[in-house]
């Protein structure tokens, strides 16, 4: 070194141009994802999803509570199915989207994908919770008990734990980027494990088959029941997109706030 290595000196280090409102992260990953574009797009989409949710929900409730006939075996209690089954579907759907978004976030470091995974978790947890509680409320009149260790109920319960683990890990770090990456890996690990857990619980259930269980959701389903089911599922899906867009917008703004705060601290 004394022998005179050429070396350019470090230039100005934080780019401090007025146009760059929030930290270096976005500047760097602009080529992959543009939260600004997402903000514009989501602002247009939110009202549409909100409207679709309200309309489909109203139609779904009408079909579910008025227009569909009572089941010949289960009577009126079958109406619980129209919230229970779509909620259970959404529980799976949300977990899948969370895993896919996490994978995109981890592989391509796509910030909007990371935020989508983070925003999906509480929604999925709520749907899972609803699937469990409505299942329990349906089980009481059908099976005479609030809870049976049925394979499906047990799997959904485990899924609920996976959501809780994801959210707990996400929140356990002082550095939000760190939490998102760790939770993303967990989401993928959980995603690989869900089929194994499902299989093991099925296996376990056949070993310990409780005698009194009436199997839910018979093999055939009448169209008079299918329509409310599908409409409610559509309503829940639109609801998911509505809320997830709102939450991702919130995440983007939160990261802009963090960028500004860091600039206040570090100049």
């Amino acid at each position: 070194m004394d022998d005179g290595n050429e070396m350019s000196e470090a230039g100005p280090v934080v780019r401090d141009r007025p146009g760059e409102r929030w930290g270096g992260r976005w500047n760097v990953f602009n080529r992959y994802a543009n939260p600004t574009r997402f903000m514009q797009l989501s602002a247009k989409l939110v009202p549409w999803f909100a409207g679709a949710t309200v309309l489909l929900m109203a139609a779904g409730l009408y079909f579910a509570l008025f227009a569909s006939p009572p089941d010949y075996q289960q009577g009126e209690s079958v109406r619980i199915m129209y919230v229970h089954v779509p909620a259970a579907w959404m529980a799976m759907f949300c977990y899948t989207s969370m895993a896919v978004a996490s994978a995109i976030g981890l592989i391509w470091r796509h910030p909007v994908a990371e935020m989508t995974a983070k925003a999906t978790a509480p929604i999925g947890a709520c749907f899972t919770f609803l699937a469990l509680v409505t299942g329990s409320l349906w089980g009481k009149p059908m099976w005479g008990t609030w809870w049976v260790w049925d394979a499906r109920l047990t799997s959904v319960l485990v899924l609920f734990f996976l959501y809780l683990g994801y959210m707990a890990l996400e929140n356990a770090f002082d550095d939000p980027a760190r939490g998102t990456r760790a939770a993303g890996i967990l989401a993928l690990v959980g995603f690989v494990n869900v089929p194994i857990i499902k299989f093991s619980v099925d296996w376990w259930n056949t070993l310990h088959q409780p005698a009194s269980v009436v199997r839910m959701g018979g093999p055939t389903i009448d169209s008079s029941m299918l329509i409310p089911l599908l409409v409610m599922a559509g309503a829940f899906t639109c609801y998911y997109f509505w809320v997830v867009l709102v939450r991702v917008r919130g995440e983007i703004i939160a990261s802009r706030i963090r960028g500004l705060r860091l600039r206040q601290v570090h100049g």
Partner: protein
Amino acid sequence: METVVTFVEMGGYAGYIWPAYGLSALVLIVLLLASLRGLRSREAALHDLQRQDDFAAVRSRRRART
């Protein structure tokens, strides 16, 4: 009137059906409102911060000029 009563009774399953629907509505609405409120408050916070930031930028530029 009678149809309303039979509707509400739900063939004797009222105690299960209405809690199921009510709880679902409650959870979904609370989640929605919480998400919307979170977004609003962050938007407001960002707005404040940006104003401070612009103000500080203007001031430092003015100082640099003098």
